[in-house]
């Protein structure tokens, strides 16, 4: 009889442990899905939701604050995404806050990221519609990459033509490379410019020391010094 009672107690403990674990699991999953906390609902209109699913997280300032609780196609190019957000974050999500569809890591699930608005605006109300920003999709990136690649191909083909012309001695730069007389002339011109610049410097130094222009140069010097300070 005593053994039978002991067995009953053991069975009771076993069943209690099993049920407690189950209830704890349900509680924590429910808590994650904001089932036991006060929430409010907002929605956003997107052109493309990029594979977002019901149950995905809503993130604000890097914290999971809600979940997607509904996705509905409104027109051929717009999709309404309903979100449930915990009440305690409502005061931080302003009227001009924006929602964008992002990704949880490189391989993670899609999420909705809410960027905060400006503090002078009022907080979002229950059942409000939040402004959205269209995410950059992989297709857009590929399209841009294609345009860039096409432009690069055009530039390189043009550059090939230019270098071919230079090599053949066509154009000014081509002549400079192939015509030794012209190269000498350019060299002489450079020497003349250098000599001219040296002479001009000497004249200006002399002018700055002459009593007629001394005042003007002095003022200029003072102005530069005050600017430096």
């Amino acid at each position, binding site marked *: 009889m005593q053994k039978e009672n002991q067995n009953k107690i053991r*069975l009771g403990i*076993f069943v209690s442990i099993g049920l407690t674990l189950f209830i704890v*699991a349900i509680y924590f999953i429910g808590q*994650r899905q904001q089932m036991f906390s006060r929430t409010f609902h907002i929605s956003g209109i997107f052109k493309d939701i990029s594979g977002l699913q019901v*149950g995905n997280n809503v993130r604000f300032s890097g914290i999971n604050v809600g979940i997607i609780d509904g996705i509905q196609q409104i027109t051929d190019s717009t999709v309404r995404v309903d979100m449930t957000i915990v009440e305690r974050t409502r005061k931080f999500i302003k009227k001009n806050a924006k929602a964008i569809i992002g990704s949880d890591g490189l391989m993670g699930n899609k999420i909705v990221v809410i960027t905060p608005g400006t503090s002078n605006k009022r907080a979002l109300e229950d059942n409000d519609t939040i402004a959205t920003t269209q995410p950059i999709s992989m297709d857009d990136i590929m399209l841009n990459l294609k345009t860039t690649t096409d432009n690069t191909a055009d530039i390189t083909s043009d550059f090939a033509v230019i270098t071919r012309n230079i090599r053949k001695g066509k154009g000014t730069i081509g002549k400079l490379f192939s015509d030794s007389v012209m190269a000498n002339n350019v060299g002489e011109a450079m020497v003349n410019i250098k000599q001219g610049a040296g002479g001009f410097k000497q004249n200006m130094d002399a002018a700055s020391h002459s009593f007629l222009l001394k005042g003007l140069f002095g003022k200029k010097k003072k102005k530069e010094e005050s600017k430096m300070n």
Partner: protein
Amino acid sequence: MSNESVIINPEIIEKKISSLNSFQKGLTDFFEEVSALTHFTIHFFKEVFLPPYEWKEFLKQSFLIGYKSMPLVGITGFIMGLVLTIQARPTMSTFGAESWIPAMVAVSIVREIGPVITALIFAGKVGSGIGAELASMKVTEQIDAMEVSGTNPFNYIVVTRIAAATIMLPLLVIIGDAIGLCGSYLGVNIQGDVSFHLFFLQVFGKLDFSDVMPAVIKTFFFGFAVGLIGCYKGYNANKGTEGVGKAANAAVVFASLLVFIIDMIAVQLTSLFN
């Protein structure tokens, strides 16, 4: 008109007829078995709601079937979680996704591996036990003696065992899953350093109601199938000691097969509703 005659070998015809007869017999046996099992199931559902309710026997069977299976399920669950985590690490680290191991193992254990492995162990331990016990009762004519003494043997022996198996297996699976996750925690910390709090958050961060509820619901069916097959095979065992072994063996094989079939149907239904 040609006068050619076809030579027919009577041996070939005899062989063909013999194989056809054996196929027919096999088919007939199969359908007879299905019919008998269906009658047995209907009989169970008729008896389960009718008094007298054998609470004492039900509690005793629950203790034997549930509590006594806990060490085996616990050890298996722990090893399962540990091994799964260690095996997953090299593949996950290739993608730099080690932090996803707890979530991946949790979803695997809770959704599929926990219920199925536990049910198979349950079929091996409990299914064979019930089959052998009932078959030996049948062989030693204890069941007939119960009938003579005015006790409803079906209600006392079969209903209590099937009900106990149906209710105990989900509890065993829940406890087995929890122990499996403890094993996974150990596995994560063999080559890494993750606090229990973080591990707990990572596990519950990815688990969903759609992971837990279908898994728990299907374990009721697994438990029912194991109990039903064990009782059916034992209750209908042939006389003789050979029948006991055959009943125990058939109970394990058939119950294990049924677990996989139920699991396949459950997965299809779950994906349909998701």
